[in-house]
């Protein structure tokens, strides 16, 4: 009995490891909200509409944007979309590599402050249809490719970190 306990203790000690807990990339709670990745450190605050209107000026720069979360990657939790401050405008995509940060679907409807590097992605019509078809499939919605007649220019933030909280 004693030997068994010793063994178990040894295995648990090995399994528990001794590393400190880095910020949880599936989010860890803070007084201000749930922090993802490196959190929000960038001081260059830009509105989503400003970014969309002047994409060439901001491409490659690290910025901070804020907005309502309107969509989340359903399968891998590797991106979310933020509504623009301008009514009915195209939302901004915040993207990370799979597993670097994992965003839960319950984030939809919350408010995000996001820190990342701006990228301009020009899709042709076929790429636009594939992209929208993929999005529709992931979210379980019907999709009609013939309804898409214009190619998209996507503004994307390559994610460094984010802070997500309830909307005010």
């Amino acid at each position, binding site marked *: 009995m004693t030997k068994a306990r010793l063994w178990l203790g040894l295995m648990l000690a090995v*399994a*528990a*490891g001794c590393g400190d*807990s880095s910020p949880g990339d599936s989010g860890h709670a803070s007084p201000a909200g749930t922090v993802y990745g490196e959190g929000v450190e960038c001081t260059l605050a830009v509105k989503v509409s400003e970014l969309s209107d002047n994409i060439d000026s901001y491409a490659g720069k690290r910025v901070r944007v804020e907005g309502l979360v309107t969509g*989340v990657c359903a399968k891998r939790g590797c991106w979310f979309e933020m509504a623009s401050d301008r*009514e009915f405008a195209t939302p901004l995509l915040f993207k990370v590599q799979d597993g670097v940060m994992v965003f839960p679907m319950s984030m939809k*409807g919350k408010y995000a402050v996001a820190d990342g590097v701006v990228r301009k992605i020009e899709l042709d019509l076929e790429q636009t249809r594939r992209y929208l078809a993929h999005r529709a499939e992931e979210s*379980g919605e019907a999709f009609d490719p013939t309804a898409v007649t214009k190619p998209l220019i996507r503004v994307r933030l390559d994610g460094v970190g984010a802070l997500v909280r309830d909307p005010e």
Partner: protein
Amino acid sequence: MGVRQLIRVLHRDFGYFLVGLVIFYSVSGVAVNHIDDWNPSYSTSVTAVVLAPLEGTTLDDLEREVVAKAGLDPDEVAGRHRPDPRTIVVFLPHGGEARVEIATGQGTVKRVRTRPILFESNVLHLNHLKGVWTYVADAFAALLLGLALTGLFMLKGRTGLAGRGKWFVGAGILLPLGFLVYYYATR
């Protein structure tokens, strides 16, 4: 205690200890392996709804109308959004949403639920927790290696590594190697 007896003791106790982790990881492994065909963490159901046309002029009014007409629980509403002039989206728990065309009242209610056991298994297996769990997962991998290596030398004779064991070990090594050779030869 002889070396072989020590190996058996190690193998036995590693095996006992790892049962729980192996179950979580293998269940998640199969689920995530088929991620192109399904969502291993969430289940989604979409129901078409036909409400009366919405008459509200403010976002608050539209949200209230959708909630009332679609029979939603006001307490479960997690927010709302107008993606375009024609549509209102009311967010529901776990990423669900009611999406309604204002002029016609036609739309869908999407309910999202986490898959019990699978969701939690995926959180562990895919290391969404990060932090200390990273080291637990590393230790798990090391102990699995220990389990494999001690398994090689548990028995001797006809059923040991020098006997029939070598054929099984060889087959287990050839399987992944064969696939790699095939993969690179046909690229």
